[in-house]
């Protein structure tokens, strides 16, 4: 039988919500479960209300569930807010000694977290680990791997030991005091599956693709990419520059790209606004650069720690003038790795800016994935100039070719001078005002789009081909839509999914084929105006009436989608 079980850990910022949540997720991923977990936090460092949701399953899982089986409540607010979502037989672990005013009995299990932490694990700092033990105890989960998990996190030593003691205290307490049901979760076959966030997968993708240079300015939810690359810069021989602002960041990355190194930057909407001119610089100088935009609700600063998908039309059109670009939107944590590898290859192959649209939800959600097979990471640097091919004296960076792609040389690596300009230029790269040379360069830059469009993949389908109802989505909603398809099919609705992780070049034909055949189509997006629906209209002429939109900063759940579709389909 399929196990599908949900935990939630809630409390104030600063109480260690993230830590318990992560450790729970890790315990189950080590134990062979599939895990999906997401984070909800406010734009503050202490106080407020944060929570971490973990769903574990024996089958693949790509979205959170609405119901909570076990809620670890580090404060009363958590109980008040989330009690209505407790599943039948669900249990709320909380510190009854410390939490005043909790009424009613249902779901509640009092565990003296603070007392146990002080008595058995050396202090209040351990409260959250006691809670972790309590939660694991409620599912009779084997604590055998706990020590290793804690050592991996805290290093071998006193801290790890204290944590083990704390968890054991919570575990033991529940085993002896809990009078209700236990939901036993046996370990499955342990695997070497990875547990990581979208941003971690993306960062690994960049590193695996040979990215050697990043410049960025901190901004949620992109900062953790900077921080990961910075942390690994010594071991992996790469450079991460914390720039003075986003303008500097993208221009540095373009400079490094020009000099021959795979380079990237990462930011969110506001920062992207400041990078727009740099996108045009990359376009006209035909310099490869990868730009990660971790979307969050806008306009402006909006909701800084929450999620949205309302940058699509912006990134498609950011910058004046006509030129080719690429916009990719990873659908899952695993996809974040592979999409990033593709982004670096296409940036160099087509010598243009590639934008990776991710969002806060994907960036900070954890999922279990099979270890990335690095043998499959092919690095394609595109057309390179070699002194064997042609006289370096005659090298011209922007030579007009049939494909629109001119061989790249790198400054200082040979005799060829690499000349380029963000003014319109001639083939040699020197500025020109000539009408014909201008026209030729514009055409050349646009022409690159044809082979690119050829190379682009097809959207991801799910469910039977030719179903009557198609749910169309893009980016981080993939897991939720997929699961909604499963649920709706169990309802006997004939539904499938079409999910895009390449937005530009747009997979026109695939959309035409899919939408042409369905009775009803729903575009599902985290924004207020239906930006993908608009793009579909522009590219295919199809006006998709059905829109399931959400723009409150919270991610879609499968249940939300299911309900919306059911309502429409009667």
């Amino acid at each position, binding site marked *: 039988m399929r196990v599908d079980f949900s935990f939630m850990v809630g409390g104030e910022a600063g109480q260690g919500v993230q830590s318990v949540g992560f450790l729970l997720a890790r315990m189950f991923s*080590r134990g062979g479960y599939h895990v999906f977990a997401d984070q909800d936090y406010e734009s503050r460092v202490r106080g407020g209300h944060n929570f971490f949701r973990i769903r574990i399953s024996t089958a693949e899982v790509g979205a959170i569930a609405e119901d909570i089986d076990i809620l670890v409540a580090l404060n009363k607010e958590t109980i008040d807010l989330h009690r209505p979502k407790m599943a039948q037989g669900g249990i709320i672990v909380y510190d009854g000694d410390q939490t005043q005013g909790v009424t009613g009995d249902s779901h509640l299990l009092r565990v003296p977290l603070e007392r146990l932490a002080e008595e058995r694990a050396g202090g209040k700092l351990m409260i959250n680990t006691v809670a972790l033990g309590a939660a694991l105890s409620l599912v009779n989960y084997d604590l055998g791997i706990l020590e290793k998990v804690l050592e991996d996190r805290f290093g071998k030593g006193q801290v790890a030991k204290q944590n083990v003691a704390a968890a054991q205290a919570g575990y033991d307490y529940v085993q002896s005091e809990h009078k209700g049901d236990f939901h036993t979760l046996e370990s499955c076959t342990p695997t*070497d*599956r*990875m*547990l*990581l966030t979208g941003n971690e997968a993306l960062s*690994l993708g960049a*590193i*695996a*693709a*040979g990215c*050697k*240079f990043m*410049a960025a300015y901190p901004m949620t939810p992109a900062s953790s990419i900077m921080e990961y690359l910075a942390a*690994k*810069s010594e*071991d*992996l*021989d*790469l*450079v991460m520059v914390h*720039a*003075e*602002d986003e*303008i*500097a*960041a*993208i*221009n*540095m*990355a*373009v*400079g*490094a*790209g*020009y*000099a*021959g*190194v795979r*380079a990237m930057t990462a930011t969110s909407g506001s920062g992207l606004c400041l990078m727009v001119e*740099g996108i045009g*610089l990359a376009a006209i100088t035909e310099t490869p650069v990868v730009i990660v935009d971790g979307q969050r609700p806008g306009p402006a600063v909006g909701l800084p720690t929450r999620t949205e998908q309302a940058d699509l039309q912006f990134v498609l059109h950011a910058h004046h003038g006509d030129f080719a670009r690429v916009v990719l939107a990873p659908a899952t944590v695993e996809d974040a790795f592979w999409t990033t590898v593709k982004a670096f290859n296409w940036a160099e192959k087509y010598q243009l800016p590639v934008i990776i649209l991710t969002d806060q939800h994907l960036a900070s959600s954890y999922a279990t994935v099979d*270890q990335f097979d*690095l043998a499959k990471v092919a*690095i394609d640097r595109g057309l390179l100039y070699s002194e064997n091919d042609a006289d370096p004296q005659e090298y011209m960076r922007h030579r007009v070719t049939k494909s629109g792609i001119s061989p790249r040389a*790198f*400054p*200082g690596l*040979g*005799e*060829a*001078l*690499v*000349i*380029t*300009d*963000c*003014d319109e230029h001639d083939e040699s790269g*020197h*500025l020109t005002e000539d009408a014909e040379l201008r026209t030729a360069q514009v055409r050349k830059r646009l022409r690159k789009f044809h082979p690119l469009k050829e190379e682009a993949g097809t959207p991801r389908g799910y469910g039977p081909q030719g179903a009557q109802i198609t749910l169309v989505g893009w980016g981080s909603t993939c897991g939720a839509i997929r699961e909604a398809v499963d649920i709706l099919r169990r309802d006997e609705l004939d539904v499938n999914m079409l999910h895009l992780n390449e937005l530009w070049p747009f997979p026109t034909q695939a959309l035409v084929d899919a939408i042409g055949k369905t009775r009803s189509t729903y575009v599902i997006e985290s924004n207020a105006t239906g930006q993908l629906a608009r793009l579909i209209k522009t590219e295919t002429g199809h006006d998709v009436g059905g829109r399931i939109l959400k723009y409150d900063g919270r991610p879609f759940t499968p249940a939300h989608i299911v309900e919306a579709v059911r309502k429409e389909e009667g």
Partner: protein
Amino acid sequence: MVTMSDYTGLKPAWCPGCGNFGILRALNKALVEMEIEPHQVLLVSGIGQAGKLPHYTKGNVFNSLHGRPVPPAIGAKIANPELTVIAISGDGDAYGEGGNHFIHAARRNHDITYLVHNNQVYGLTKGQASPTSDFGFVTKTTPRGAANPVNPVAMAIVAGASFVARSFAGDIDHLADLIKQGIAHRGFALIDILQPCVSFNHKNTFQWYRERVHELEQEGDDRSNKRAALERALEWGEGIPIGIIYQDKLPVYEDGLPALKEQPLVRQHVDHGRVEKLLTEFT
């Protein structure tokens, strides 16, 4: 042997008599005398009359956005520290649009040389005030006179640049010598160059500068004393000192990058063995 003719570029589109010609010549002279070949140089410029310079000499050229030559110069230098990277700006480019990059590149002390053609006006866009326009300078955007000007050399010192100099486009030898020293210096080297604009600045002319500039006595003068340097830097008006105003050995950004220890990034390849290890950290 490198000769001046190796550095012959396109015909300049500058106005006859423009101070930029002197700067162009001085730069070429410096490169020739240092025996640097064009393909070893990367010239990164912004937009403006100054920004066109790289087209009029030889070298690798990245003619970048207005106000933004410094960041791509930094990116390229980190990608390939073997390149001699020279950034080139006008005063509007460097201290107006590019002001933030200027102070932070100085602060982090990146190993590039920065030539700023300071004509105290916006040349290419036809005569608006620049951040260095003298107080009260009347232009079409400042009909009642420009505000207090910025003092770029004082600014650079305070920001943390480790080589701060001023020269004059009318003194090619002096300028060429400073450029050589700036290139030889490890760290951020600013050379602010007084550059007459014969079309739009009828105040700060060749004559005007000539009457005021005086070479700093370099002997017996402790270049690395920041307080004394600031004294020199604040001098402006009847007398304008030229030469190296401040120089010190300060931590260089690129020296703090372990990835650059063995060889330039551009010559490195990704090692999937090492990536594999990273993956296991997530299991």
